[in-house]
């Protein structure tokens, strides 16, 4: 049932730009943020809140521009290499951070991401400073496309990636490693006594979450056509946590549901009032109060009896 609902949801989203073309950009951004929020949600399953994942989002988008400068111009290669770069940064940062828990983990992620933000903003010669850098339109299998055509392809490729990457993440979460990740939240002592290395479980999760944030960042970079240091600012990281919690961490679709909801709400609110933050904030309060497990909590099948 949930699979049918998910498929129907994706088909509706795929059809929306045919009715309202301006929605294509909004929805592409939502997909990008959905991937990054999914990365945050992966760590949330272990009870770890990262307020720094926008760093990987930005690192990947900058990676695309650097690779383009080096002459790499193929969309698939740019996407794959920039995601790998984000994963590599995640492996380096994660190897230090997975030793920490609770507020320390959250704050250290924030601190590292703000160092990254400062570097992006200050190293003008390398990153273009606060002006950022343009993200060129790549070729797709050697074919050069105009901007409009490329962004249309980007949108549908992004939707396709939701299915492919979403299935892979679902598989991971349902594997022994995924269950061990959830178990970190409840009992690290038992995990150690089962012979399971908690640090390795967390490091793998951290790298996966960084790669997901990186995938989102690359898509956002292509969609916007520019990457700026604000991609890595702490409010962007906070936004990703918000999307993940709003959508629900019980399953892969949650992050995307949260992202689509927030982006569409934001787009609708700005047409009504300048105080769009007020509308978005009020909506969030309502959702969090009445849906503590997020939107996805609606669709979660009760796997276990609590009788």
């Amino acid at each position, binding site marked *: 049932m949930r699979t049918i609902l998910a498929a129907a949801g994706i088909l509706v989203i795929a059809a929306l730009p045919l009715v309202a073309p301006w929605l294509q950009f909004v929805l592409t951004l939502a997909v990008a943020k959905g991937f990054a929020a999914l990365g945050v949600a992966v760590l949330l399953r272990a009870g770890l809140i990262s307020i720094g994942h926008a760093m990987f989002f930005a690192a990947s988008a900058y990676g695309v521009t650097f690779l383009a400068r080096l002459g790499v111009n193929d969309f698939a290669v740019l996407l794959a290499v920039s995601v790998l770069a984000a994963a590599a940064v995640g492996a380096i940062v994660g190897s230090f951070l997975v030793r920490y828990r609770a507020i320390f983990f959250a704050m250290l992620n924030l601190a590292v991401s703000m160092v990254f933000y400062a570097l992006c903003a200050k190293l003008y010669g390398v990153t273009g400073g606060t002006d950022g850098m343009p993200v060129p339109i790549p070729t797709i299998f050697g074919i050069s496309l105009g901007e409009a055509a490329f962004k249309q392809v980007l949108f549908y490729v992004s939707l396709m990636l939701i299915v492919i990457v979403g299935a892979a993440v679902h598989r991971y979460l349902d594997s*022994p490693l995924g269950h061990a990740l959830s178990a970190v939240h409840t009992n690290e*002592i*038992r995990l150690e006594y*089962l*012979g399971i290395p908690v640090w390795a479980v967390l490091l793998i999760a951290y790298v996966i979450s960084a790669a997901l944030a990186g995938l989102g960042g690359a898509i956002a970079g292509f969609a916007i056509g520019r990457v700026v240091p604000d991609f890595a600012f702490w409010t962007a990281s906070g936004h990703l946590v918000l999307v993940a919690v709003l959508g629900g961490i019980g399953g892969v679709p949650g992050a995307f549901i949260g992202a689509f909801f927030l982006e569409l709400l934001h787009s609708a609110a700005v047409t009504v009032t300048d105080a769009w933050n007020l509308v978005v904030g009020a909506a969030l309060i309502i959702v969090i109060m009445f849906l503590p497990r997020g939107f996805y909590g609606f669709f979660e099948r009760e796997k276990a*009896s*609590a009788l």
Partner: protein
Amino acid sequence: MKPAILETKDIHVAFNGVKAADGVNLRVGEGEFLAVIGPNGSGKTTLLNICTGYIKPQSGRVCLEGKDITRLGPRAIARRGVARAFQIPQLFSDQRVIDNMMLALAAKDGLWSAIRPLETEARHQEATRLLELVGLADDAKRISRTLPEGHRKLLDIAVAMALKPRLLLLDEPTSGVSVLERFPLMEALMAALRQARITALFVEHDMEVVARYANRVLVWNAGQIMAEGRPDDVFSDARVLERVVGVA
């Protein structure tokens, strides 16, 4: 004498000057079911903590099948075939009973062969068999935090059993278990241990359980072994009766 599976050699541990282990030499023979009894606070659980690497002795050595494991942590010792059930059950409380079991079985299989889902047919069958052994088969789909304390204790034992250990350390396996369930549990546990040729060391306060099931009893008092031997001999020792059993 049967070859030793676990030995401690002159181990010393003190907490703020209070001796929890004071030059203890302990030997657990293969296939034994060794009971450790003693007053509250005498250091029995500390002994299990030392044997599983949770606490490092200030001096002395711990050997598993002749190999020094003194400086190893719980994970490394678990990988060498030592499993533990705790006085306070250590479970994945947000997960289902069956998932607790299957994660333990997956840990035994090797967590890194992780492409397949946690729930495989083989794991499900083995988990169900172990849950039947401890009488929890009907609770398989419950979230483990919703179990009554006695059943949580049984699940903790089943999780430890799932590792198919060479040596099983049980910290008060029958505490919290109802009187009606206590002896059936011990009978089933003993049968499973014999069948799987698992050596066991258990800390216990219920002297009836100790008398009925232990091959050998070790009396722990103030960080030292006060007496040891067959249950009949130990329970006829006047010092043991006075200080541990509480019968003067």
